[in-house]
């Protein structure tokens, strides 16, 4: 029974983390985009407008939960849950510190990415079942985008896995603590992962699914009240998941260079969160400074550039890593890094 209790507690904790992340990222987005656009952002309620979120939540909770007449009732109600659940599950695999991980599984990286592939299906369900042209166009774009970024995203996580010799995220973090951050040897992978993460989370310049100037709000046009709240929250929680995954795979996760990973203690989660928010800040600056891609441009970027590039780079990287290992094993390089499984 204690296992069950532990699982329930972890679930509650993860939901709390997800809510707090969503809330803080929404506030951060308003402030950062405001600064990027030379305006102030929320500034009335509380110091620097920090309490603005509470009326927003109250508004979402008290609005009428309306259903379009011609909507597909079952899928329409289910869609926000299909969007929300995989994102919540993805939180469980992120290591926040030594042993602070809800599900320390062998396949951590792949589990997160596998669950995140289900999110576009939820988005599609939302758009299709709404029976609205705007929502349907947004939904089709979302599925089209999914088949564009999924392959390069999966390929770009291979170099860290190869270097750590494991798909366990805790192992990947510890390998980086004992050698170098993986962004140093695998910078191109990190850049491609960052790009695909932006596509995955529907961030501008890749936010065609909810391009508000042409599609009202894309797939979520017909949603209101807390159903919309779920979709909205998932989107921002997705930012955190992808940023935390990027920090874990390429920036040493919860460790710091020169600090013994076992003496990090309570600071470990803080280090990961700070790293993630720095990456999210980068996401937001790009969002504020670049104009939106067209659908065909994004498809061409994915299929014609990113996929061949990642395939080639992964091959080059594998050959390079192997020859480096062989050379350092024979003593030619003195075994500086000690990478490899």
């Amino acid at each position, binding site marked *: 029974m204690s296992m069950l209790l532990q699982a329930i507690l972890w679930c509650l904790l993860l939901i709390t983390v997800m809510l707090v992340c969503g809330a803080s990222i929404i506030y951060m987005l308003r402030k950062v985009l405001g600064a990027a656009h030379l305006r102030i952002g929320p500034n009335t309620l509380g110091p620097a407008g920090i309490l603005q979120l509470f009326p927003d939540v109250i508004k979402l909770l008290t609005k009428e939960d309306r259903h379009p007449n011609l909507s597909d009732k079952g899928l329409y109600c289910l869609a926000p849950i299909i969007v929300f659940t995989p994102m919540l599950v993805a939180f469980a695999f992120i290591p926040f510190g030594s042993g602070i991980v809800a599900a320390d599984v062998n*396949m951590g990286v792949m*589990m997160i990415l*596998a669950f995140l592939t289900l999110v576009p*299906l939820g988005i599609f369900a939302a758009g299709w079942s709404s029976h609205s042209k705007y929502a349907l166009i947004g939904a089709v774009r979302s599925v089209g985008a999914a*088949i564009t970024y999924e392959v390069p995203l999966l390929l770009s996580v291979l170099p860290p896995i190869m270097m750590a010799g494991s798909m366990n995220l805790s192992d990947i973090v510890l390998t980086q603590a004992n050698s170098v951050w993986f962004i140093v040897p695998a910078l191109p992978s990190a850049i491609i992962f960052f790009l695909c993460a932006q596509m995955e989370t529907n961030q501008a310049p890749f936010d065609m699914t909810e391009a508000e100037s042409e599609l009202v709000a894309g797939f979520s046009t017909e949603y209101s009240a807390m159903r919309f709240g779920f979709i909205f929250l998932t989107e921002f929680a997705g930012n955190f998941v992808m940023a935390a995954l990027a920090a874990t795979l390429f920036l040493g996760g919860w460790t710091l260079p020169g600090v013994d990973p076992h003496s990090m203690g309570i600071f470990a989660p803080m280090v990961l969160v700070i790293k993630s928010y720095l990456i999210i800040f980068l996401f937001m600056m790009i969002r504020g400074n670049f104009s939106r891609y067209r659908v065909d441009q994004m498809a061409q970027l994915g299929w014609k550039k990113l996929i061949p590039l990642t395939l080639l780079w992964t091959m080059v990287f594998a050959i390079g890593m192997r020859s480096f290992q062989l050379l350092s094993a024979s003593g030619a390089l003195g075994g500086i890094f000690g990478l490899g*499984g």
Partner: protein
Amino acid sequence: MLSAIVFCLLGFVILISAANCVSSENVIHGAYWLLLCAVAVAGMTWFMGAEYLAVTQLLLYAGAVSVLTIFTVMVTHRSHESACTEVKLSWSALILALAFFALIAYGVIATPELATLTAAHEPIPLAEFGAELFAVDGHAFAFEIASLVLLVALVAAVWWTKDSDLDGERIQKSKRKKAAKEDNHA
């Protein structure tokens, strides 16, 4: 006890969703039942300790196959109504299904080791798993054959949606006929 409950629950979900996937008239609903079925199968394999298989199942069947199916449906169908196709029952399909069932059942019965097989308690290291998978006398061929699944899914999705306009018209015609009949009765 707990594992038996989870096993039965997942098995129940798999059966129900598979039946609904085949019998639903709406292609999109069918695709989502297929998704549920794939997720439940992944859950079952995960629960049996086959982590790699579960993740592959989730990534390929639940993620890629469903996305490809829906994408194909959306490329071929434009409107909400025409996503409905008539469910056609045929004897040849029944025979094919029974033959497949017999094959699987024979495979299970002919392998008595399955009954005593237990889940691995220690997770297998990735390097060991890869070496085993791609060993000279290993499973490389089966692995490569399995990669055809996406092609099969794409072809199946195209087949699933072919002639859809004719079917849609037929359904609407039959609906109109029915409505006219009811009008006459009234």
